[in-house]
């Protein structure tokens, strides 16, 4: 009886998550496009719904809600479904839509989509070879194999995203990095842009008028015959067309310049808006957060380095360690079991909510930046794939933040995965990404400075 009740609860929550994913898709992602293939929307919402259900099961695990057998059953079910979606459905549709965009392969769409999918499966399988995940006890198509590979990709993604976020966040929020842009700078650049456009227009007018005159002359000349007139027509048109090609080259160069000026103006406008924003209260608050966050990032890099150098993976989770510290050093006595449950619930809840929210915001920004009306379907599916893999590996990594008694369900369901390996892998990628990003970040900043100041002060 309780199993039926539990299943109903799970199903209702899944429907809710599905609805939320649907709305998010329609309102945020596809705001400016028309949804022609509803398949894409359904697949995205399904991935989102099942990922969120996994998080929900962890929360239930901590709270002790629902009976443990039905929790276990739902874990297994959920995992199978999400693996099915991430490994079979989404890649197949990605291949299908990519192939549909290419005009040559239109006829045999299904065939080529299947071929793309088989290539994906091959590389996906090969991915597992260099890592210590294959253990002789389990068969080929077992859940451990698939999860382990998904875990590797997802953890890499997570580390890359965190590394990127860690460097980008201070840069975006802190006003220290903002150059001083005045209105007159922007006006000067806009004036240059309009001057360039005027030059392009006058040259194009010359081309159009020359062409028109050539055309009219050509008509007149067709009426005249005679040897001398034919020679004259050859030489004059040659001179005309050479002149034209020269002007055309100048026009091409000017058009390239106008594009550069346009992009620089957009850049300056954006910087000016950020300066204005930083003067508001919200801006100051984020500025402060930026300082705080960069200190946290430095600490995290330090910890990652120590972990790798001293070959150590944190054995206890922060909750238990925090409680130990308070009990042992501060002498405060309280009911450990009771508090550890609540605190870990809050901590895990915060991690889940912020990671979902952060991921959705990043996905939206990314989508706006690179999508066009042709590629929007493919990009949304790629984002759904990233989202699914990210959430699956969050579950893997979250295991470390939970006290021992709650880790059991995750370990039980996911089998004998080498969890420590994943933590080490995360640290490595995070570190590499972060130092790489910082170096390129500072280089880019310096280069941008040079370019803009050279351009706006006049060559």
């Amino acid at each position, binding site marked *: 009886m309780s199993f039926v009740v539990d299943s109903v609860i799970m199903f209702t929550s899944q429907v809710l998550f599905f609805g939320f994913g649907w709305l998010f898709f329609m309102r945020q992602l596809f*705001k*400016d*496009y*028309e949804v022609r293939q509803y398949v894409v929307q359904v697949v995205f919402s399904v991935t989102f719904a099942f990922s969120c259900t996994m998080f929900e099961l962890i929360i239930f695990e901590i709270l002790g809600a629902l009976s443990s057998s039905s929790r276990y059953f739902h874990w297994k079910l959920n995992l199978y479904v999400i693996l099915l979606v991430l490994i079979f459905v989404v890649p197949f549709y990605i291949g299908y839509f990519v192939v549909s965009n290419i005009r040559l392969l239109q006829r045999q769409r299904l065939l080529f989509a299947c071929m793309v999918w088989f290539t994906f499966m091959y590389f996906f399988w090969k991915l597992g070879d260099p890592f210590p995940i294959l253990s002789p006890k389990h068969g080929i198509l077992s859940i451990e194999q698939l999860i382990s590979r998904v875990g590797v990709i997802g953890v890499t993604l997570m580390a890359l995203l965190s590394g990127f976020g860690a460097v980008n966040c201070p840069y975006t929020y802190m006003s220290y990095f903002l150059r001083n842009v005045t209105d007159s700078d922007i006006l000067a650049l*806009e004036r240059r*842009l*309009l001057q360039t*456009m005027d030059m*392009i*227009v*006058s040259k*194009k*007018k*010359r*081309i*159009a*008028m020359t062409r*028109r005159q050539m055309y009219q002359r050509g008509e007149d000349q067709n009426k005249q015959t005679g040897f001398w007139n034919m020679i004259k027509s050859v030489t004059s048109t040659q001179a005309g067309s050479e002149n034209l090609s020269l002007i055309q080259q100048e026009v091409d160069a000017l*058009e390239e310049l*106008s*594009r550069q*000026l*346009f*992009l620089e*103006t*957009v*850049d300056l*406008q*954006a910087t*000016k*808006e950020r300066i204005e924003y930083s003067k508001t209260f919200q801006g100051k608050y984020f500025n402060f957060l930026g300082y705080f966050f960069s200190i946290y990032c430095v600490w995290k890099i330090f910890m990652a380095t120590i972990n790798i150098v001293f070959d150590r993976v944190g054995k206890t989770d922060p909750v238990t360690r925090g409680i130990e510290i308070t009990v042992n050093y501060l002498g405060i006595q309280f009911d450990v079991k009771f508090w550890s449950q609540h605190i870990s619930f809050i901590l895990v809840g915060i991690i889940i909510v912020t990671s979902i929210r952060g991921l959705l915001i990043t996905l939206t920004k990314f989508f*706006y930046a690179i999508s*066009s*009306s*042709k590629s929007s379907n493919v990009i949304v599916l790629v984002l759904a794939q990233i989202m699914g893999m990210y959430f699956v590996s969050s579950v893997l990594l979250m295991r470390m933040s939970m006290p021992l008694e709650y880790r059991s369900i995750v370990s039980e369901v996911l089998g004998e995965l080498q969890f420590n390996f994943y933590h080490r892998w995360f640290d490595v990628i995070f570190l590499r990404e972060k130092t790489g990003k910082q170096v390129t970040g500072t280089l880019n900043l310096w280069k941008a400075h040079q370019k803009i100041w050279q351009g706006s002060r006049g060559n």
Partner: protein
Amino acid sequence: MASLDRVKVLVLGDSGVGKSSLVHLLCQNQVLGNPSWTVGCSVDVRVQDYKEGTPDEKTYYIELWDVGGSVGSSSSVKSTRAVFYNSVNGIILVHDLTNKKSSQNLYRWSLEALNKDSSPTGVIVSNGDYDREQFAENPVPLLLIGTKFDQIPENKRSEVLNRTAFLSEDFNAEEINLVCARVVLFSLKFSLST
């Protein structure tokens, strides 16, 4: 050559509806082979004989300013785009007949181009909802062009033409504009389907 009068016409519309192809067709009399994204603004010029054949015949340079981007761009892009909207003599609004969103976005495009004086930061003053009042006193003539007509299956064509009829009415385009839009539609159909 430079003594001819000039007419500046903006060509606005969503990304990918075919503005660059349209401008290329009008100015170079040939189909654009490899369309790519327009960054910023690309201008082309057409020499047009106004009232050809009559004693009032006059030759003009028609400058077609093809402004790239989408209505949902960030405000920095919008304020930069606004420099192109100065002293405009006419606006061509282009929408894709196979994509309903592009027709809906035309309201926002026209508001952006016409409201440029009242909001120097480029932020749209109204909330984007259509307001017929704003178009009633509009001195700038509008022309609506729908592209990719040949990509619509036969059975949906009359429905699409109905929709565009309502659209031109909403913009307070006069009857002649509606007919012109349709004529351009059909002629575009024949020439763009190559």
